[in-house]
């Protein structure tokens, strides 16, 4: 199509889209004026009914737990797609591993320290997700991200255990499938899918929320391993081992 033809198509499309967007924005409630009622209802019922002091997690893993299951499988499907695309391509050559470490010892020390601290913060975010802000997704992504830092400071040999598909794939299935199994457990005992079965515990403690804790850990595992699988595919397919600074 010619340049003029494309512009002739773009103009009306932009105008139409702009008009719709302007119309939509004009109809929004004023800034800071939430109309509800969904949020107001949740604010009032989640803590008394589910004992999770982080209402967001009570909502995502219980009130709309089925939606969250769908979201988890979106990530699963995305990683599956990337894996299928990249595995057909050329693999990184394991021969080129010389000089893949960072040059400065201080930088490596800082990196290694950050790996330990980052994993700890990630686990804390996941564990206390339903008590304070955080949750399985945030914690899982942080754990996976800090493990990838190990590749940058320690090189491929230090990161090798996290490249093992034989370990990653079953763990990913355990995380993604675990969510569904918890839902089916309710179904098996004659209740609707994903009904909160376990005892609700004390609000504000780790022993609260019933099934929410289990669902939270299942999604933390699923997110961590999904990202690690993604990183493994990228590292194996795309990354040339890091060269020393004086080599570049």
């Amino acid at each position, binding site marked *: 199509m010619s340049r003029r033809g494309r512009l002739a198509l773009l103009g009306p499309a932009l105008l139409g889209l702009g008009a719709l967007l302007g119309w939509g924005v004009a109809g929004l409630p004023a*800034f800071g004026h939430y109309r509800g009622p969904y949020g107001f209802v949740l604010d009032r019922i989640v803590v008394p009914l589910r004992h999770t002091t982080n209402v967001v997690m009570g909502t995502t893993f219980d009130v709309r737990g089925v939606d969250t299951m769908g979201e988890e499988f979106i990530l699963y499907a995305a990683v599956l797609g990337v894996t299928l695309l990249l595995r057909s391509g050329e693999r990184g050559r394991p021969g080129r591993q010389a000089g893949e470490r960072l040059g400065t010892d201080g930088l490596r020390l800082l990196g290694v320290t950050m790996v330990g601290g980052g994993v700890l913060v990630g686990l804390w975010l996941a564990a206390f997700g339903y008590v304070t802000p955080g949750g399985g997704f945030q914690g899982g*992504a942080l754990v996976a991200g800090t493990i990838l830092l190990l590749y940058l400071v320690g090189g491929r040999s230090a990161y090798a255990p996290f490249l093992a598909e034989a370990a990653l794939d079953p763990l990913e299935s355990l995380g993604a499938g675990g969510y569904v199994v918890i839902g089916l457990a309710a179904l098996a005992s004659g209740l609707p899918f994903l009904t909160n079965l376990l005892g609700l515990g004390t609000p504000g403690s780790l022993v609260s929320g019933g099934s929410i804790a289990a669902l939270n850990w299942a999604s933390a595992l699923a997110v961590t391993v999904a990202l690690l699988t993604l990183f493994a595919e990228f590292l194996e397919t795309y990354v040339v081992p890091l060269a020393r600074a004086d080599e570049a």
Partner: protein
Amino acid sequence: MTVLATLVPLQAVAFGLVALGAPLVVLTRDPLRQALVNGVYGVSLVCLFVVLEAPDPALSMLVVSGIAYPLVLLAAIARVRGEARRRRRLGRARSRPDRSGRR
């Protein structure tokens, strides 16, 4: 104007940073710099979420825009540049490097 009047100064600053950051990401042409600028832009969004009292999305945004996304981008850029360097060394590269990022 009614919207501006309801904003607390801190919220206005956070919105301003986001409005400033978004075009900067788009206008940065070099992919490596763009990945870094995008990370900084992500942090400005995190600030906005915190200021608007939404800690959960702020944490999600922090780990996605600060860790996961840039790392994937950097991995891809490292590969593309490493390939280009290897080709140059082998003397098969064209006189002008391909800037579109395709191999």
